């Protein structure tokens, strides 16, 4: 549709003239919807729709002007298109490089990665006359499409069969090659389980003393690098303030993510080939673990039972079939149906599951506190108005044992289909 605003002066004039016979129709037409504000009811009574009065102002707010002076002065119903306000930035000849190795958990930039890229932007853009470029090094396959919006100027994507699995030695040798070729001024890595390990390996390899657990970076004229950083030390009890070293492993929320600019994310390649090396660590693949042995705090999928569960055998069976870790509310534990170490909530364990399925739990505030950091909550409950249903992303109102039995049947059907497919292949 054209962005041009077509004004009809005659209609505007009719809209201003309350005595015009077509006044109401025109007003309704200009008001966006075809809702007339007054019409003759079936019994000969004038009906009035109070919601149809007025017009939509420039900020998207409905304006009712009873004086009739200003009615429909603006062409209404034209919502402001949400234009992409990001300013494109291209840095062709960077003065220096800031290298970032994002975690890419799940193939996408995590929020930790975005914070880190924000920090990299701060370091790169400090001197406007000599801007640096942010180089991101990504290993393996990814699903990310918005590298530029995260603040990346150059992207080195290393893919192929060589980068499948856990390859710390190959990764660090590759980073060493990148260091030799582009000589970045800073190396930034997230201090998570993946990035923290890689960063420490890189620091040991390059012989640099890194700063770990950094949570703040500030400009400081007195320090040698022009920056100082604050890092947690002594198991989080101390703050160490020092000049910013070359290799930095930063915590989440170390800086604000980039939101106002869009960068080029120009793909680059290494001019030298990848190193060939002896593999001293061989990845033999992930091992299937028994969900019951996983601690509740780090379980991925929890099936939690409360007071609404009457048939405990079917609940245990469902947990086994679904491959879920078992949890319980306080009532179920107090009544002796579940062990104390399975209790979820303020007095039990604070869980961080990706999917939390609450069966017959009404959702006491202590329980809801315990599941604060869960991504998806599924509730099966008889009471539609309970707090757990309000919290849940998906709630099924019904009897817990029947729904669980149906879910087990569906799951068994799915397993059978999978088995068939495997046999066919």
């Amino acid at each position, binding site marked *: 549709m054209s962005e041009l605003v077509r004004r009809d002066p005659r209609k505007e004039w009719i809209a201003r003239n309350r005595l015009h016979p077509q006044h109401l129709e025109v007003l309704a037409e200009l008001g966006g919807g075809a809702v007339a504000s007054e019409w003759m009811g079936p019994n000969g009574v004038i009906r009035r729709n109070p919601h149809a009065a007025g017009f939509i102002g420039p*900020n*998207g707010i409905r304006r009712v002007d009873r004086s009739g002076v200003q009615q429909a002065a603006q062409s209404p119903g034209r919502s402001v298109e949400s234009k992409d306000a990001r300013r494109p930035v291209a840095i062709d000849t960077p003065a220096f490089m800031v290298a970032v190795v994002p975690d890419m958990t799940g193939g996408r930039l995590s929020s930790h990665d975005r914070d880190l890229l924000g920090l990299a932007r701060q370091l790169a853009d400090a001197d406007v006359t000599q801007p640096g470029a942010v180089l991101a090094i990504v290993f393996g396959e990814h699903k990310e499409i918005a590298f530029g919006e995260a603040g990346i100027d150059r992207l080195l994507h290393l893919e192929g069969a060589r980068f499948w699995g*856990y390859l*710390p030695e190959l990764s660090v040798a590759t980073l060493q090659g990148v260091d030799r070729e582009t000589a970045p001024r800073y190396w930034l890595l997230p201090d998570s389980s993946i990035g*923290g*390990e890689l960063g*420490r*390996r890189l*620091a*040991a390899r390059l012989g640099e*003393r890194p700063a*770990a*657990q950094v949570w703040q970076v500030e400009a400081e004229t007195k320090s040698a690098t022009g920056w100082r950083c604050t*890092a947690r*030390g*002594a*198991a989080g*009890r*101390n*703050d*160490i*303030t*020092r*000049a910013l070293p070359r290799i930095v492993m930063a915590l989440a*929320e170390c800086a*604000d993510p980039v*939101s106002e600019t869009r960068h080029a994310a120009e793909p680059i390649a290494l001019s030298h080939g990848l190193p060939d090396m002896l593999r*001293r*660590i*061989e*990845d*033999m693949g*992930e*091992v299937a*673990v028994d969900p019951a*042995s996983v601690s509740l705090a780090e*379980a*991925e*999928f929890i099936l939690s039972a409360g007071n609404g569960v009457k048939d405990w055998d079917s609940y245990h069976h469902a947990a086994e079939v*679904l491959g879920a870790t078992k949890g319980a509310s306080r009532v179920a534990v107090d009544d002796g149906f579940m062990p104390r170490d399975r209790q979820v909530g303020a007095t039990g364990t604070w869980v961080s599951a*990706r*999917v939390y399925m609450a069966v017959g739990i009404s959702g006491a505030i202590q329980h809801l506190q315990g599941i604060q950091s869960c991504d998806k909550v*599924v509730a099966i409950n008889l009471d*539609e108005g309970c707090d757990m*249903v*309000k919290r*849940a*992303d*998906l*709630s*099924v*109102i*019904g*009897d817990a044992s*029947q*729904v669980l039995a*149906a*879910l087990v049947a*569906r799951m068994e059907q*799915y397993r059978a289909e999978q088995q068939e497919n495997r046999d066919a292949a």
Partner: protein
Amino acid sequence: MPHDASNTSVSHSNASSLNVTVLVSVGRHPLTARTRRADQDARAVEMALMLTGASVSLLHAGQQDSDHEEAIRGYLGMGIDSVGLIEQSPQADVVPALAKALRESTPQLVLTGTRAETGEASGVTPYLLAEALGWPIITGLAAVEKIEQGTAVVLQALPRGKRRRLRIRLPAIATVDSSAPPARQSAFGPAKRGELAHQQAPSEIDEDLATWHIQPARKRPKRLKIVKSSSARDRFKAAAAKAGGGGGQTLNDVTPEQGAEAIFKLLKEEGVLR
């Protein structure tokens, strides 16, 4: 049966020659701030003690005083006869001394915690040792499955309770984090009776440390929710919006089968079904 017997004898003869060194440090209790055995290091000692037929030796490099000695004796109370103590000045960099000691004693496996509980606690020491010795290093050791022909098959702990099987070439360094089995209690009598084998080594002073400013940790500022919008109405709506609540789908008046189908779809989308 004979097959079994030969198997056990092979593993036994290999295991009996397995030298495991555990690097231990002085920990600090998070609440009372008293010195104690470091939690992750104690887990590393526990893991070494659980290896069948391994000869376990402990090594500590650091300053000597009564507090620290008491903490080190906590490890002796786990059922170990002696701890090698390399005396270093308080401001020393312990990596050269430890690397030298490990090069001399040539263990096949070195276990240690992921990071210390005092000092800089950056967790880089094991990596520096691995680099200095030229050994491979792995993180998050959860279990040692078997050791044969100069390689070890181990399980590595990943987030969310997952495990990954790795084969590493020995000698190697492995760090242990809190996903390893918890350490056994330290018994008072053995802790008092145990021997501290003092070793002298020159201290290399860590000069960078003097230039750093160390203070008790400040509380980190909480990030505010940033709303980018040109209209005041949108900003007000975002600021005044109630947290959480709503947005969920409620299935009322459905058969159990329909409900189960909806739940199954969600579970499949989230990828939690195996």
